[in-house]
């Protein structure tokens, strides 16, 4: 087998500073294409929603597009797209992001737009009711009207976790969404959307001095409110196996997902990384352990996925989180057998170790994924913003391929040893659809 190539790294320059109001700023210039990516990440997500208000963080994200201090409804979209850009926002377990990709000549405009809504969205009864309707349609299209909707990211956390923060449905119940009020939205904004609770990252074709001046000009007048204290969401590891099932009326075939807790992704980063690698050893491509065994040899599974974090973003999640495996089975497939085989393969790795080259080739592929994810200026800005927020230094993004490449076989074996049935939470989808 040819020698594994040296794992390359990126050398994106990173300029970091903090404004007087507490806003942390990351600038990462790259003149290779005339485009910029702008990301604002707020340190609030699904886990911070109040009880009785499931889905509120996501609903609020929608409200951040409904007009702001200087802008009427629809104006944000037109200013971004009418300058040749694209935009969106998304709500995650531990953060909420807002972003644009623009031709480089729109840099100052993009910064103005983000600063304007950081000063305050236009919260009105009409906009709230309209967006509750839109979010309900989003939930219908993504969860309720399709097979395997919300599987496993909405279905498995309530099996694994006990606290409301970690277990509840982040898309929200229709009752909770319909009960939301403008006053609650205003409170949510005041509490969580402080400048000191946000990171702004700009990547792409920019001059650092000019960009820093624009940032200062547009964001320094955002009021200085204290950032809220972030609570711990810690829960103890499972001591005994948890297993549950549900019937999906639209699903034609069985499926199963299983999860095991992993070390704290931030506080215990070195112990966490081997699990990120293990997930790929198990599931990345036709040469991976579980695809070989379950899909190609036993044919007990037809498709397979494995990743760390319920939303599949290992470097954008905080504790507690998990390594997740999900599998779709053929008609009348045997979920117990699949879970037993996974246990067996994990034990085999822990006991017998990896094949020659197996770890190195997995790490090489992971490096490609990591590098590819940073090629787009927007992806780079988003990842740097989250890494800055959760890990205190955006330039860590340059180090990730190398750090993944330094994980040793002994560490992967030790991680595999932890995938024991007693620590496992799993959920089975029983097909209720026409077979």
């Amino acid at each position, binding site marked *: *087998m040819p020698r*594994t*190539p040296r794992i*390359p790294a990126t050398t994106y320059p990173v300029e970091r500073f903090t404004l007087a109001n507490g806003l942390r700023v990351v600038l990462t210039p790259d003149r*290779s294409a*005339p485009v910029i990516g702008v990301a604002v990440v707020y340190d609030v997500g699904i886990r911070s929603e109040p009880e009785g208000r499931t889905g509120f963080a996501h609903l609020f994200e929608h409200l951040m597009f409904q007009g702001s201090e*200087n*802008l*009427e*409804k*629809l*104006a944000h*979209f037109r*200013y971004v*797209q*009418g*300058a*040749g850009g*694209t935009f969106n926002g998304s709500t995650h377990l531990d953060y909420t992001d807002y972003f644009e*990709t*623009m*031709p480089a*000549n*729109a*840099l*100052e*405009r993009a910064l103005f737009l983000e600063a304007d809504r950081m000063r305050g969205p236009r919260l009105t009864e009409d906009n709230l*009711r309209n*967006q509750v309707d*839109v*979010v*309900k*349609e989003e939930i*219908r*299209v993504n969860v*309720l*009207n*399709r*097979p395997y909707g919300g599987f496993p990211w909405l279905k498995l956390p309530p099996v694994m976790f006990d606290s409301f923060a970690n277990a509840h449905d982040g898309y929200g119940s229709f009752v909770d969404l319909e009960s939301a009020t403008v006053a609650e939205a205003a409170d949510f904004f005041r509490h969580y959307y402080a400048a000191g609770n946000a990171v702004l990252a700009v990547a792409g074709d920019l001059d650092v001095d000019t960009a820093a001046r624009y940032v200062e000009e547009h964001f320094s007048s955002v009021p200085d409110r204290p950032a809220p204290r972030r609570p711990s969401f810690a829960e103890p590891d499972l001591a005994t196996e948890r297993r549950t099932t549900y019937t999906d009326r*639209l*699903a*034609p075939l069985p499926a199963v997902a299983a999860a095991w807790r992993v070390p704290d992704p931030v506080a215990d980063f070195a112990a966490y990384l081997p699990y990120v690698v293990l997930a790929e050893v198990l599931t*990345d*491509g*036709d*040469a991976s352990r579980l695809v070989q065994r379950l899909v*190609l040899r036993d*044919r007990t599974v037809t*498709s397979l996925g494995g990743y760390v974090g319920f939303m599949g973003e290992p470097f954008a999640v905080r504790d507690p989180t998990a390594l997740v495996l999900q599998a779709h089975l*053929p008609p009348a497939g045997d979920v117990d057998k699949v879970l037993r085989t996974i246990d067996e393969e994990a034990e085999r790795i822990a006991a017998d170790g990896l094949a020659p*080259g*197996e770890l*190195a080739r997995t790490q*090489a*592929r992971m490096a490609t994924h990591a*590098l*590819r994810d940073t*090629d*787009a200026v927007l992806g780079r800005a988003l990842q740097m913003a989250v890494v800055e927020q959760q890990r205190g230094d955006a330039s860590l993004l340059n180090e990730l391929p190398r750090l993944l490449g330094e994980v040793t076989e002994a560490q992967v074996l030790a991680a595999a040893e932890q995938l024991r049935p007693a620590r496992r939470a799993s959920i089975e989808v029983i097909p209720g659809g*026409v077979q």
Partner: protein
Amino acid sequence: MSAGSAVSAVPALGPDRKLVLPKAVERKLTNGLTVIAIRRASVPLVELRLRVPLSTVRLSEPFVAKTTLLSQTLFSGTPKMSIMDIAAELQTVGGALHAGADPDRLLVSGNALASGLDRILAILAEVLTEASYPGEEVDTERERLVDRIQVARTQPAHLARVALLKRVYGTHPYALQTPAPKQLRTVNSRALRTLHGERLHPAGATLVIVGDVPPNKVLDAAEAALSTWDGGGKDVKLPATPPLKPGPIGLVDRPDSIQSSLRIALPAVPRTHPDHAALQLANLVFGGYFSSRWVGNIREDKGYTYGPHSYVEHSAAGSLLVATAEVATEVTAPALLETRYELGRMATTPPRESELEHARQYALGTLQLGMATQSGLAGLASTYAGFGLRLDYLVQHAARLAAVTRDDLADAAAKYLAPAEAVTVVLGDAKQVESSLASLMPVEHVTLPADES
């Protein structure tokens, strides 16, 4: 520029940047394969796209079954390498390759660390010249595919697409793009080897490689690896797609569906047609981006839907404009009414100057954004190559976009967006939506083939 209310505080844009194309070189190998190499050194990777024409002249279920299964088993073995060897060797250079088929072509896509270019090309060459479709792997993939199709058939978006293609294309090969399980079950490894031998030829194929390697080195590497790939093969010319036949709403019953899937097809023209730029902008103003009239109406004003969207899709034999929305069951007819109203308004009244400018800037800006990554460049170059175009088309297209006037846009809208020309399909709970839909337009029940539902 005005957006909503004019706001003096919103910063003006800096000067426009001219569209700059990356350095690209091209070589046609003696076996007929065209290789295009483009330099983008942003990350130390290479992106590959190999496009091989693979169409059929007649609507043929067995052909669709064979091309689909071939695309899923192309990398499952050669006399020298097992499926595991191929995947492991690719991984060793940080690489992976996948294939997919549509009615026009087989597309192999992949990437690797830049230092692995020679290795990924060597494996690609071995598979193209010696893929053996081992029986065991073909059996496994066939059953996986059957399962996936069974799942797809419970997805409203897939079913609505199947119904729309059938109604739009009739007996044209494009009418059928997903194989039926019973057809798949007739395909064995011998059939795949035969199809591969007959149709996977370098003549007419294009390999695009983008990345952090000097383009001339890329051409040499590709030539060294792929010049032994067998030449010959015949060019299949697809019949032109039939004209649209507007008619009653085609209603597909999906009992208990909590949303209805609206699909509207309208005529469109290829990228090289003189109306194309104006049509692209007319589509944007109607429903082609978030700032459009349709999104403003049925989402941001009425809350009927989450992600309404319209787009022009280009295929070798014709182009089509498609508008899609998933709407709450109880507002199915009102959503269709608003959709037809917005189409009618496009077709009969000129756009505002600001609408034209926003659409134009968006179209020009997204050209820049689309070229700003290795994978984006590779996808664009490969798609254009499939239509005989090169990246310099983008410069010409940008000039045409810049020249479109309000009159041009209004003319294109009248010609292509008129609701009278629309083919309409609704998939939803017929007992809840049929009578209100019938108050707008005649309704005709459409059943998908038994094997399709």
